[in-house]
């Protein structure tokens, strides 16, 4: 095991493969603290990378913002056309709001994941020339997309007002829901970024996976329409429950919709059990992502 220890101005990097378990655990905890300190130390770099990203996106302020809204609004209109005019039996009240409050967080997730995957390889000129905590690259991608998402939320609130859907007290849960999504996204992004350094076709595969994932996530349909019991080979499945358990994004997206839209008459309380469950899942994904990333980021400098 390789350990990093930081005392005052001295930095010791040592590799010792034969440490007892307890010592390893101690080093691991110490490692987490050191990493967090390191991130804090490099906050200026994070800010620089996030602004760079946003600068490119919003090159000329107003038009840039409109442009970043173009994709979700167009998607919203297409889905509305398909599920109201073309298939009227779908019958969801205020469909544009219904679908937009799922599309925006999904786009945030999808853009962050695709961006994170490429982040290490695309920045090879930095990674193999200077040291900085490598996790800064995927993290700043997620943060830039978060800012973008927050800007887009303004459009969603405008739409909610326009459809006269009352905002309830549950809207105050929004920051918590966003926090859970950020945790999950960073965790998942760290795993994918690492994989792409070693297997460069991860990027191509994930583009397809993200499309499939989109359909398995309640975006243009609601979790409520999924069957509560479905028979395969004589075994009955609670599909709605399993989708939530297997796919954290289903829970997250559903939470957004529940607190902002409810069943079309205004926000409602989310399912507390699943909310906590998703939070725990997201934290676990972050922990796994961070350990994988830290373990392998030591060799990024010689791999890219």
């Amino acid at each position, binding site marked *: 095991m*390789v350990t990093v220890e930081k005392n005052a*101005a*001295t*930095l*010791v*990097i*040592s*590799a010792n493969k034969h440490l007892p378990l307890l010592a390893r655990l101690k080093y691991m905890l110490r490692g987490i603290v050191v990493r967090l300190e390191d991130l804090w*130390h*490099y906050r*200026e*770099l994070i*800010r*620089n*990378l996030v602004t*760079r990203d946003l600068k490119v996106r919003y090159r000329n302020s107003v038009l840039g913002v409109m442009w970043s809204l173009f994709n979700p609004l167009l998607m919203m209109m297409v889905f509305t056309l398909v599920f109201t005019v073309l298939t009227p039996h779908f019958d969801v009240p205020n469909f544009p709001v219904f679908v937009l409050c799922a599309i925006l967080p999904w786009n945030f997730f999808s853009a962050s994941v695709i961006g994170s995957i490429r982040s290490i390889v695309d*920045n090879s*000129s*930095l*990674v*193999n*020339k*200077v*040291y*900085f905590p490598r996790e800064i690259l995927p993290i700043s991608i997620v943060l830039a997309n978060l800012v973008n998402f927050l800007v887009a939320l303004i459009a969603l609130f405008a739409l909610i007002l326009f459809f006269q859907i009352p905002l309830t007290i549950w809207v105050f849960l929004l920051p918590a829901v966003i926090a859970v999504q950020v945790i999950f996204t960073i965790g998942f992004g760290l795993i994918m970024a690492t994989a792409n350094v*070693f*297997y*460069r*076709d991860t990027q191509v*595969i994930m583009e397809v996976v993200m499309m499939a994932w989109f359909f398995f996530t309640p975006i243009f349909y609601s979790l409520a329409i999924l069957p509560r019991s479905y028979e395969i080979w004589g075994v009955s499945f609670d599909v709605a429950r399993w989708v939530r358990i297997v796919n954290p994004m289903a829970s997250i997206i559903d939470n957004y919709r529940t607190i902002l839209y409810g069943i079309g008459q205004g926000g409602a309380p989310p399912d507390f059990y699943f909310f906590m469950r998703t939070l725990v899942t997201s934290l676990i994904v972050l922990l796994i992502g961070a350990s994988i990333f830290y373990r392998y980021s*030591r*060799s990024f*400098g*010689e791999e890219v």
Partner: protein
Amino acid sequence: MTRPVITFENVSKEFKLSKLRVRSLQEMFVSMFKKELRGKHRFWALKEVNFTINAGETVALVGTNGSGKSTVLKLISRIIDPTLGIITVSGRLSALLELGAGFHPDLSGRENIFLNGSILGLDRKEMTKKLDAIIDFADIGEFIDVPIRNYSSGMQMRLGFSVAVHVEPQIILVDEVLAVGDYNFQLKCLNKIREMQKQGVTILFVSHDFEEIQKLCDRAIWLNRGEVMAEGSTDDIIKAFMDIYQSKEGQDSFPQSGVIPIVEQNMVTSDVGI
């Protein structure tokens, strides 16, 4: 006063051979059937390297191409990690490693100055104060607002050197980069290095220009095939080095020593290939 700022204790570094490295799932699939692609193809670029560099020293690292000099500098700057051993570095470090100084190709020179500053831990305010001095020293004219990808290697080096020396480092690593600059700029760099020596900055210097090394460095470390061959005063080391290599008709035919690849598993050729 001798305070060690860089120490290597039994540091070894093993690399994978990139030619045989699996880069995609497709290759992974193929390698499941091709035995000769399997197994570990690695070699030791550094073997149990030990040395100490004290505060304020200027040390030269000499050796033929492939002897591990750049690997040592990359280990010190934490771009790569040692396979075995302990490296201790204390103090703010800035490094100028082989071509390119860690710039983002899409950003302009000016934006890269700030990016570089933040990588070295300086905030925007501090960098703004140094901006003029950096641009002045690099002296690349209106190119400062052009994306780095349009720079020549010499221009990149000028800007890289300028940033590296203006962020007030306590340690600076310089890897064969000065040779890229034109005559005037080389002089300017050497003057700057002398100035930093006076300020007590610790300098580790890789160059093939022995005259330059003799003028600048107090001490030299000679690396050969990833091992420390000798360590001592600059004059002694260069003399010993020349003695060995000058017998072999001139500089051009320096033996391409490198490090002999150690293939750990027997390369059993098989006929299972697809």
